[in-house]
């Protein structure tokens, strides 16, 4: 079956195996790294385009995560990702902002809310109400705002509102507009 356990042989063998592993993976990483980065860029581009269909370019400030949306080189809006804590975990929201600080719109990028209830936050019916809203509108109707909650999913809705508010405030402090 297996060779003897004499002396240093086992350790040497294991070290060799780990080295082979590192070499093999470095090779694979070399092949895939660019592809993976490209796939991610593609994904961000598609994501931004859902809010700004007229976009033909974008810039990103790595530090703050703020995207500047460009058409023919000039700024037409900004976007930022915000994360909120919903019923079932993290909700990632993409927020698009017009230069006058009104919302272009929002998109829910990922969530794990209850299917059929909170998960409806990804539906167009729910999301389109955010277009054109200002910071002041961002609260549930019953709290004086303009957001209609999803029936039976107040927590998920509130989480989204919270995330959007934080995103806008963040854009504001990063020198937006």
């Amino acid at each position, binding site marked *: 079956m297996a060779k003897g*356990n004499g002396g240093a042989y086992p350790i040497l063998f294991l070290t060799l*195996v780990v080295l082979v592993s590192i070499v*093999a993976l470095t090779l694979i990483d070399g092949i895939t790294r660019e592809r993976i980065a490209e796939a991610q860029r593609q994904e961000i581009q598609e994501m931004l385009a859902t809010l700004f269909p007229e976009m033909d370019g974008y810039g990103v400030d790595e530090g703050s995560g703020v995207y500047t949306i460009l058409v023919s080189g000039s700024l037409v809006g900004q976007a930022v990702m915000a994360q909120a804590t919903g019923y079932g975990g993290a909700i990632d929201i993409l927020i698009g902002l017009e230069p006058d600080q009104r919302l272009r719109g929002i998109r829910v990028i990922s969530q794990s809310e209850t299917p059929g209830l909170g998960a409806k936050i990804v539906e167009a019916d729910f999301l389109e109400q955010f277009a054109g809203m200002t910071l002041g509108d961002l609260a549930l109707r019953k709290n004086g705002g303009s957001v209609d909650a999803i029936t039976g999913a107040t927590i998920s809705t509130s989480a989204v509102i919270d995330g959007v508010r934080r995103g806008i405030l963040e854009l504001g402090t990063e020198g937006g507009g």
Partner: protein
Amino acid sequence: MGAWVKNFTNGIIRANPTFILLLGLCPTLAVSTSIDNAFGMTASVLFVLLAANVIVSALRRWIPDRVRIPTFIVVIATLVTIVDLALKAFIPPLSKSLGMYVPLIVVNCIILGRAEAFASKNTVWHSIADAIGMAVGFGAAIVLISFFRQVLGSGSLEVFNVRLFSIPGFVDNPAAIFLLPMGAFFVIGVLLALFRWMGVSECE
């Protein structure tokens, strides 16, 4: 040849990793929300299991007994990372669906178990049979569970973005609970009982 076939079919029925050995449950239940995921996960497991079995079997005479588990682990972890990177680069949507459960294949008891119990003690040829059989058994199980979860949970069946069928009336108001984690537990519990009742496995 008879022995090869025997080793192969072992993994499908008699020692089905999911339903009989109750191994590798983490990924099975986690990704079984759709059949596409199930296929993707099965393909990943098949690759890792096959490669791991072949490598361990080929090297079995040189692996020192004392470091055999760490060796298996490094081999499997390397293969899993290869699959993870390949998916991220070439099939990003699948990589997103399967998420961290791809790297978690490394602690999937099926693979480590087969390396230890079979590949380290048998020839490469037979280890291949074992690997494919176990992967098929695993695949059958996860596809079966996904089938029920997807149909009951969303009222329709979609494979590779092609809608195969939907149940009229049900599709608008499906039993969404099956898409939630607990749905997975219910489905596998019932299926296990069903298999016992059919006499396929023994009761405790």
